């Protein structure tokens, strides 16, 4: 589903050059739940962002469904992200000025779907994460766990094939963290491919496969 070949990422400033990822080769299969672990600064999030087409590698190939995406235009990449990928961020990245329902609708705004369809789909996604009673609330009226559930609803509302979660439980206590992980496991059981960056070994053990990074290099 996602194939990364010889990925290298270098951050360059006028004075220093930092190698964030070096010779990464990963193949994520359909239906897999993969964890990425490693110490802080080892390149986990960078790798996830490259998989999610949010960032470009300095070198190497990215294939989504066996198609090279290096030459895709900004518009084509946006469309691919919209159709195929859902994101969950550690710091939720909800828009505080919009209600929970409006936040969840966002991915559908960039498809040719009617307002009624968007409302229905957003309600359905919120029901799935157990937040149907908070639809008219605003993000700053919710707890951390509730915010992350809204973020998950936003990630799944467009029924993407892949969910990329960057430390989705990083800002939550363990009870809330487990609740979120259970939702992700349920989504995976329903057929969604998930790649999750985490620091938590116990959570990683519940996934199918673990990729470990160290100083930008894939350890195993």
């Amino acid at each position, binding site marked *: 589903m996602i194939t990364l070949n010889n990925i290298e990422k270098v951050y360059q400033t006028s004075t220093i050059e930092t190698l964030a990822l070096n010779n990464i080769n990963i193949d994520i299969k359909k239906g897999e739940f993969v964890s990425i672990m490693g110490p802080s600064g080892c390149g986990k999030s960078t790798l996830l962002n490259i998989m999610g087409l949010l*960032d470009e590698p300095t070198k190497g190939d990215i294939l989504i469904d066996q198609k090279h995406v290096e030459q895709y235009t900004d*518009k084509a990449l*946006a469309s691919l992200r919209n159709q195929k990928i859902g994101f969950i*961020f550690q710091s939720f990245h909800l*828009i505080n000025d919009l209600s929970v329902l409006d936040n969840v609708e966002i991915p559908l705004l960039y498809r040719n779907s009617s307002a009624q369809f968007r409302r229905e789909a957003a309600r359905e996604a919120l029901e799935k994460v157990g937040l149907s009673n908070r639809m008219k609330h605003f993000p700053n009226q919710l707890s951390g766990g509730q915010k992350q559930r809204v973020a998950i609803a936003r990630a799944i509302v467009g029924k993407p094939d892949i969910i990329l979660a960057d430390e989705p439980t990083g800002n939550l206590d363990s009870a809330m963290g487990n609740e979120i992980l259970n939702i992700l496991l349920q989504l995976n059981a329903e057929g969604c491919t998930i790649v999750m960056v985490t620091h938590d070994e116990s959570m990683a053990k519940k996934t199918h496969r673990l990729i470990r990074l160290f100083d930008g290099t894939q350890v195993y």
Partner: protein
Amino acid sequence: MLLNYIKIAWKVLLRHPFYTFITLFGISITLTVLMMITSFLDHLVGSHYPEQNRDKSLYIMNLFLEDSARTSQMGGPISYDFYKKYIETLKTPKRTSVSSMITSANSYINGKRIKVSTKYCDTNFWEITNYEFLEGKPFNQTNIANGDHVVVITDAMREQFFDSSSESVIGKMVEVDNEKYKVIGVVKAGPVTRILTFSDMFFPYNLPKSNYQRTGLQGTFVAIIEANSSSDFPEIKSEFDNNVSKIPVPINIGNTKYTIIDTHAQTYTDTMLYGVFHQEIGNKFYIVVGLVLLMLMGLPAINLVNLNVSRILERASEIGVRKAFGAPTRTLAFQFIVENIFITFIGGAIALIITSVGIYLFNRSGLILYSDLTINLPVFGVSLLVCLVFGLLSGVAPAFRMAKMKVIDALKRQ
């Protein structure tokens, strides 16, 4: 989607009351100033009561005499004699009219002296102007032939001279400068700024005090020429210039020999400008006015651009999220355009309210007697459009700047 954008725009406005105040203040004050200025200019030079024919009229108000070395100059209004010989004889116009510049006279009501403005005019004056007769009628050729002491007064004068009873004042007498005149008509007063047609009282041109029998080219009169359409202007001007060229020179006044007669049939605005600058101003005037208006709009617009840049940059995280979930650059730019249009419309609505109140108070203040300033809707539309363009530019530039930023960098800007 539009609703989503407007909701966001509204929330952003509420989130930062101070920014919102500055933004809306900038937009609404710019539009208010523009609308007030254009409304005032329109009041001064537009075709309004009682000069609704102004756009198809030419005026001859100034006549300058100069010696050959152009060292000595004498200028002023034209004489009645000049009108009869060189203007009334024009073939192209629909009609011509002559009237004196306003003069002031004294009158007494119940022993109290009041100053009134007076004007002497011919019968065509009532055809070329659109004075609305509230009572009676204008004087006619018979009144002029008989030398009748008749007068047309304004409704404001009627209130001053007669009791405010509903009884007609036609046939009653008014005394002006120790002469008695019979009121023959009452018209609705026009603003004092329409200086070529304004007066409190209108008398037949041939009453002795008008000095219409004065010879020479210069006097106290002004001519209004009504064309069938403004396309006839060049022909009328040329015919008039041709008539003037036939006047024998030199003209001896005192010890000076005047060889140059400088007078033109001009539109109202050009006539006024020529009277002030004594040269053809033409497009220069409009360019200067345009530049002043542009400056008035430009300064708040630049301020608006800065505000928008910081307002949009502050929302980098939102832009990052939208891009991550599939918003293309163009769609994001469109979002900010919609937001700016929304804000501009709010500013426009505020400006419309402020201008309406301002104009109402101005008209009531009496700063300009009988002023009738109005909100000119085409002017409002154009002002709004220009402000909108600035709004768009100020929104699009930061939006594209954000669009260039990588999604991940935008997301990191919390």
